[in-house]
């Protein structure tokens, strides 16, 4: 039986000056790297496949399979790009990880680059987290000084340069192809797929884009092996996962537990609902994942569990809202966010969020009618699956799920406008 909490990625966080290379090496850091460099790159890819590691950025794509898509012997440079553009509302796991233990990410980057035969890697960090950027830059400098980066790493003949790249404020850059465009010095707007990054990514060369938590897991998998990794979590969603609890909960924070842990279990560890006010709604993985309610407390939070219950695992950003919060208001706020962050490239997302915000603002201000709910749902229907990228899909999640579970609350906003004087409709 595996413990309720399984600190792997978070295990070093409690160490004093955990971010330094001294602490990292003292606690077993950079021991996976020499092992990995002695292995064949394809063995590392196979090990990653065997581990069942799935992307921690939200989509849950099998990581080893992604690495395996990189064409080998194609004569082009290969690139590894770390998606550290953490911006999904509610999500706050990668930033603390990189601040507390940047070297685990760097070691993962080196091993992954070796596996996919990349000699240049970039860590794209959202610009608003300066302290994190500082720590990463320092970690890279330390790694160069120790010979973990640069030419002929540990005498293996393998070369790698890593650059820390600060973004500039755009949620859409969390979308991997928008991130690549942004990293190339362009507007962060998603690219057409195909071609996929695996064949035509950064600078039109084969590129792997992985999330921070995903790649930070790699040194542990190399050291522990795929079977060890699979001891945690469930069969199709193995491993540990950082669950971020926020909102109306007694002890919000980061909880690293096996995949498939439920909110009930997590709430229990977090001291329950704040001030005992009952749970009303929550997001399993950020605002783009359809809302859950108290009836979903026992949904196993892994990729399958969340999907079967009608939502998505996303980034395991559990935003907890109690009964004091108005759902239409929360939905309006999120919609304002998506409108602000829509990149503008495609019509449904750009124009749709512009429209939805206005309807919701009007409703929350008490000027809505019941037919606005139909319009909301139909506009959502015209955005969902019609947009260029997943931002549009995410944008309608709060609205459709909010109306699904809390339609009465939307209708209540319209009450005073539904009175019709006798004869008015004659």
């Amino acid at each position, binding site marked *: 039986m595996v413990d309720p909490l399984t600190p792997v990625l978070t295990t070093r966080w409690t160490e004093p000056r955990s971010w330094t290379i001294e602490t990292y090496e003292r606690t077993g850091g950079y021991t996976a790297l020499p092992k990995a460099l002695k292995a064949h790159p394809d063995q590392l890819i196979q090990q990653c496949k065997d581990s069942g590691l799935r992307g921690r950025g939200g989509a849950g794509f099998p990581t080893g399979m992604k690495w395996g898509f990189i064409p080998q012997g194609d004569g082009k440079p290969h690139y590894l790009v770390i998606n550290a553009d953490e911006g999904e509302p509610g999500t706050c796991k990668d930033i603390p990880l990189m601040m507390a233990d940047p070297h685990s990410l760097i070691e993962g980057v080196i091993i992954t680059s070796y596996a996919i035969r990349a000699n240049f890697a970039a860590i794209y960090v959202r610009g608003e987290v300066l302290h994190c950027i500082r720590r990463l830059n320092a970690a890279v400098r330390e790694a160069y000084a120790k010979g973990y980066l640069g030419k002929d790493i540990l005498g293996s003949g393998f070369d790698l340069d890593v650059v820390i790249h600060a973004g500039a404020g*755009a949620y859409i850059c969390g979308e991997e192809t928008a991130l690549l465009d942004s990293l190339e010095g362009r*507007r962060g707007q998603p690219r*057409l797929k195909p071609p996929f990054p695996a064949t035509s990514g950064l600078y039109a060369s084969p590129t792997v884009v992985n999330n921070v938590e995903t790649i930070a897991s790699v040194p542990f998998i190399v050291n522990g092996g795929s079977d060890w990794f699979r001891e945690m979590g469930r069969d199709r969603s193995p491993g540990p996962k950082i669950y971020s609890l926020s909102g109306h909960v007694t002890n919000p924070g980061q909880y690293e537990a096996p995949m498939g842990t439920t909110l009930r279990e997590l709430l229990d560890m977090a001291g329950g609902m704040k001030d005992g006010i009952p749970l009303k709604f929550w997001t399993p993985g950020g605002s783009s994942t359809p809302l859950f309610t108290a009836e979903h407390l026992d949904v196993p939070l892994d990729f399958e569990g969340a999907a079967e219950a009608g939502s998505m695992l996303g980034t395991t950003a559990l935003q907890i809202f109690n009964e004091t919060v108005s759902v239409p208001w929360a939905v309006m706020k999120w919609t304002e966010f998506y*409108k*602000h*962050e*829509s*990149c*503008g*490239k*495609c*019509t*449904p997302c*750009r*124009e*749709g*969020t*512009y*429209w939805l915000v*206005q*309807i919701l603002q*009007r409703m929350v201000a008490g000027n809505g009618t019941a037919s606005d709910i139909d*319009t909301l749902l*139909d*506009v959502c*229907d*015209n955005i969902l*699956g*019609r*947009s*260029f990228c997943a931002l549009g899909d995410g944008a309608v999640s709060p609205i459709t799920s909010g109306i699904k579970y809390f339609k009465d609350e939307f209708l209540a906003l319209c009450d005073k406008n539904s009175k019709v004087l006798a004869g008015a409709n004659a």
Partner: protein
Amino acid sequence: MTIAPDKPTAAEVVVPEGHVKLIIDGVEVIAPKGELLIRTAERLGTVIPRFCDHPLLEPAGACRQCLVEVEMGGRPMPKPQASCTMTVADGMVVKTQLTSPVADKAQQGVMELLLINHPLDCPVCDKGGECPLQNQAIAHGRSDSRFHEHKRTFPKPINISTQVLLDRERCVLCQRCTRFSAQIAGDPFIELLERGAHQQIGIAQEKPFQSYFSGNTIQICPVGALTSAAYRFRARPFDLVSTPSVCEHCSSGCAERTDWRRGKVQRKLAGDDPQVNEEWICDKGRFAFRYATAGDRITRPLVRDEETGELRESSWTEALQVAAAGLTAARDANGVGVLTGGRLTVEDAYAYSKFARIALHTNDIDFRARPHSAEELEFLSGTTVFTNPDNGVTFQGIEKAPAALLVAFEPEEEAPIVFLRLRKAARTGKTKVFHLGQFTTPAVEKTLGTLLACVPGAEANALNALAEHASDVVELLSKPGAVILVGERAAEIPGAFTAVTRLAERTGAKIAWIPRRAGERGALAVGATPNLLPGGRHVANASARIEVERTWGVEEGSLPATPGRDTTGILEAAANGQLSGLVVGGVDPFDLPDPALAEKALAQAGFIVSLELRPSAVTAHADVVFPIAPAVEKSGSYLNWEGRRREFGLTLEGTGALPDCRVLDTLAVEMDADLFTQTPAASAADLARLGEGAPSGSSLNVAAPLQSPAGAGKAVLATWHRLIGNGSLQVDEPHLAGTARPVVAKVAEVTAQQFGLETGGYVTVSTERGAITLPVETDDLPEGVIWLPTNSGDVTVRATLGAGHGSIVSVSGGKS
């Protein structure tokens, strides 16, 4: 590219190599691999609505208007797919709006979203009536709006250049304009700005959309967001008559559409001709047409009054009689020379050629109203005149060429559509472009090219030494399909044509001569040259002469047998009395290599007949002036640089203006000669009877000159024309003129230091004729070279300096 028969069975349909079979709306279709669904459907007759899609731009998938349902391998894809980005695949089943309620709703949904922020100003919008958004809204949109909120507003149109206006409220952000500018033109001066609902098209502050191709964005804008300053509010599309036409400006011969009403051209649009201009034209071709309606247009014949010495209007009869008598007398005295200019149609040029031979009995005829050389004539008459799209370089050939070497040729300035093809060829990665010139022009960069820099006049030496200094270029030129493109200023470079010919012989590369003006290739073909009769027949070739004499029905032995004088020779002879008269077509003396000589010749010539549109330095001296028709008021054809015949019909009927060929035909009758060129069609038929002659071979052997130092205080002049400048066909186009490139001189940093020139300061360039002072910039020119635009703004190199490419000029710091 075939569509399957109506009721195919599996056994009947054979899928050709490189093709796939799919089903669209229940109909089985064969499509070439890589074809986009939207095009396959269109071939089937199903038009899927779209905004961002354009066949010549890279797919964007941005507007989402073209969503369809797609099934692959029996599994429906979970979301509707953009048919403008998805390529066909074997076994694919596609349902468009015709058969899929999902696709139909998706399209209606996108249409509604596009309209929520669209202003309701169709009644005052230039695009109204030809607007894809309007049309598709009517075809696929709702009849009412559910949008009751606040529309996004912007200040109404802003000028993004002097000729393009942007109305951001109307924009649907399809990015056709930005993609055109970045991909096709290579001028990324118009961009998406801001983000999300605030996203808009725009320019950088104080950096207007200065592109020679900007007008194309107006044409491909699927809404009324980009409009033309010149055309704005002038007409409604449904009130216009559209006539296919051919551009009269450069030698590319672009297909155009001329829209007019009540006898007046309102606008020109690019025509669609995949072999020539695809769907693009340059801004000169699009916007420069008001010269034909300039206020001072000559509409009646003019005769110089014996008493006042001034030109006065006359009847056609009087003018023809005076001209015939004057020319006959001049012919019978010392003879008459003919200068045709480079802008004639084939049919008109032929009339001049025949007129010279049978009415004036002379070979003193030359179309080259610009610097020229005997070496050039030898090259043109030995080689160029016999090339055509079947045996020579073509636009499409450029696209396939492994290498293109440009010699004394500025494609963006001189033949913009050739430039676009070169850029396209370079961007697809197939073609390496080399520019033998003087500095890294924008065209060098935009064709991803390599500059081979040399001192003006040293181009021939550079070519001869190419194997030594740039063996990679020679190697690439030796690959099949390689091309050498030679421009008009090669005539100013001794030995250039010889060196180019030898290089082509060594490498097997094909040579194309690309003149600047639309009429030059045609004039060459019809013998408007001192040494050729029509069809490339040499005048000195007795059997060729007999061929022509028989076809023309003139007395055997009546055609002059010795080559005549070239342009400069004619002018010199007129100036010193060796010629008694001149017949001059559309020639601007200030375009000639020595305008002073031209002035003198015009002043001295005994009798001058001018065929002109507007008063000029020639009409100022002419004894008789005949008004002639501009391109839109006649039919005819141009021979473009490929040697491709570009035929066009009459656009404006009934203006009464006569083409040159008709005027000459009548004049010839007055002189007892029959040209049989009463109409362009008659002229063309008469020309066709002649066919092509046999090549007489050429003996190019002009040595590359030794370069001597320019001397203290002197520099070597590099100069060429810019697309937008002082050209006589650009009058009355202030919007176009506003997009001309800045008029500056260019020198190398080291040269600037030698002459004490300050960056941002002025330079004075002078010869014994005169001086020009203008701002100076530094660039990567060879040391001791200074570049000036030939004829832009106040800078008129030939008129003021009497100098040309390769001349030695004095340089000093100018006023600051």
